[in-house]
């Protein structure tokens, strides 16, 4: 379980001059950055800095106007999101995007999709092996529910959970795909202090299991406490990069957040 600091060459994800334009508005301006394997990478920046746009460019929801994202040597840009997910990237959404009428367990079971095979004919005609696979999906899903501590809510409709638990459920669903890179988009948004602390522990635990985490967050306490490196975006550009300590002392960052003096 113990992780040794990754050697500098072992990058998990590389962004190469990603540029995104919407009409006359430039949302991202030539973002280049490499995320080392096995760390918690924080991404911060004021509202509208382009954090979610960057996420969407990496996960295939948006196609950057220029530039590309490369994951473990594979170019992501141009691939549809479901193929990117199968490569081992999983994500949560800024605005909760659960399947709200499905149960908590079913939501996590859906996360097992890339790890199972049965199609229409196999499931409809109950091919041999199909029930076994279904059982396996259920067991693995329960395992991830246990991991995040939602096992008691397994049979509730996901939409009936309070927001804090919905956010955790999204993490569990993303984990169920067994990602090597997990992208979390403001997971602490709407959580109270205790929930946020628990979430921080959970994220560290996930990282401890060898998953690289890319974390967009507004909660400064959380991000400063758990991330090893931070990327600061501002008006679509890279403003600063470094360790939490360096970022805290960076006058430009202070200025971006509090405004110019």
């Amino acid at each position, binding site marked *: 379980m113990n992780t040794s600091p990754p050697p500098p060459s072992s990058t998990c994800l590389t962004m190469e001059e990603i540029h995104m334009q919407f009409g006359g508005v430039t949302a991202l301006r030539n973002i280049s950055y490499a995320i080392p394997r096995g760390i918690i990478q924080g991404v911060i920046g004021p509202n509208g800095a382009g954090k979610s746009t960057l996420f969407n460019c990496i*996960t295939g*929801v948006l196609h950057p106007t220029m530039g590309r994202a490369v994951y473990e040597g594979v170019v992501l840009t141009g691939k*549809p*999101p*479901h*193929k990117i*997910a*199968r490569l081992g990237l*999983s*994500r949560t*959404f800024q605005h909760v*995007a*659960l*399947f*709200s*009428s*499905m149960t908590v367990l*079913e939501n996590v*079971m*859906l*996360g*097992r*999709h*890339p790890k*199972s095979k*049965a*199609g*229409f004919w196999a*499931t*409809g*005609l*109950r091919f041999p092996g*199909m029930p076994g*696979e*279904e059982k396996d*999906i259920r067991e693995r899903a329960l395992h991830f529910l246990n991991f995040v501590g939602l096992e008691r809510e397994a049979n509730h*409709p996901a*939409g009936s959970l309070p927001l804090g638990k919905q956010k955790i459920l999204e993490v569990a*669903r*993303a984990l169920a*795909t067994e990602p090597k890179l997990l992208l979390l988009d403001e997971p602490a948004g709407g959580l109270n202090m205790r929930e946020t602390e628990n979430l921080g522990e959970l994220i560290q635990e996930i990282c401890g299991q060898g998953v690289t985490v890319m974390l967009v967050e507004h909660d400064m306490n959380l991000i400063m406490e758990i991330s090893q490196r931070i990327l600061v975006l501002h008006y679509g550009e890279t403003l600063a990069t470094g360790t939490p300590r360096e970022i805290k002392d960076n006058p430009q960052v202070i200025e971006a957040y509090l405004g110019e003096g």
Partner: protein
Amino acid sequence: MSKKDWWIFLVTAFLIGVFPLVVQPFRSVSHYVDVMVFAGIFALVCIGLSMLMGYAGQISIAQAAFFGIGAYSSGILTVHFHMNPWAAMPVGAALAGFVAWLLGIPALRLKGHYLAMATLGFGVIVNIIMNEEVKWTGGPSGLVGIPGLSIGGREIFHELAWYYLVWGFVFMGLLFCFHVLHSRVGRALRAIHEEEAAAEAMGVPTARYKVQVFVLSAIFASIAGSLYTHYMAFINPSSFNLEWSIQFLLMVMVGGMQSLWGAVLGAVLMTFMRNEWLHVFADQEIIVYGALLLIVALFVPKGLVSLLPRLLPSRIFKSSGTREDES
């Protein structure tokens, strides 16, 4: 399938099984068996449409066309090529599935109104072809001389036999769909309906699933069409026009989109209405249909099945095939 679903399945199968024994002794309702043969055929179409619309959330106003492709495939292959009806049926189903696949790849990239219009347009085109290719289809006056179905060398004449045959198909179709729904495929379909972006992000190839469930619905409609052809022994294009596509939509809506049982209930109810109860309205029939559709869409968007738990003492219908929440 969950325990509840099994119970409903068995109870329904039992009710369907004894239905003829109950109505046949009474002259005034003995022809209900015949009505129920049609209801079963339409139920088969509706089960497929429910998979597409209720679960995967994709609209189609072209089901009558696939119903017709099955019907005319069976008709043409048996009349012009003297093929065995049982062999013609899967050929029709394959053809309908193939056409749905060809249409579905571009069409299912569209959403909402655009998809509705594209399927509507396709349905009308198919109907025009049925009317125009007189050499094969007999044109507007129809195709005659279609043989019946036979089992073990004996043709099925008795409508009771037809009744059990058709409803046998319905229950097989239901079983197939229930298995699909309670699996990773079913979850993926429901996920596409609720949050397509999230489903895609979890590795569900949403485009492929949408096309596949469209093909499935076309195959169901086509098999129903084949059964219809052999039962009627005569077909003409007016049974497969736009009005019928809307009828299927209506059946699924009235019964309840998010439930396979709703599809069956809607098909049975609407078939009886059409054949038995709405005749009093004569020419105003279509207004009644329109009003019914409007009332259901406005006030009972989850269909009659959603009202059943309130009527029945047990909560048996709750969460069986019915989904709790719908947007």
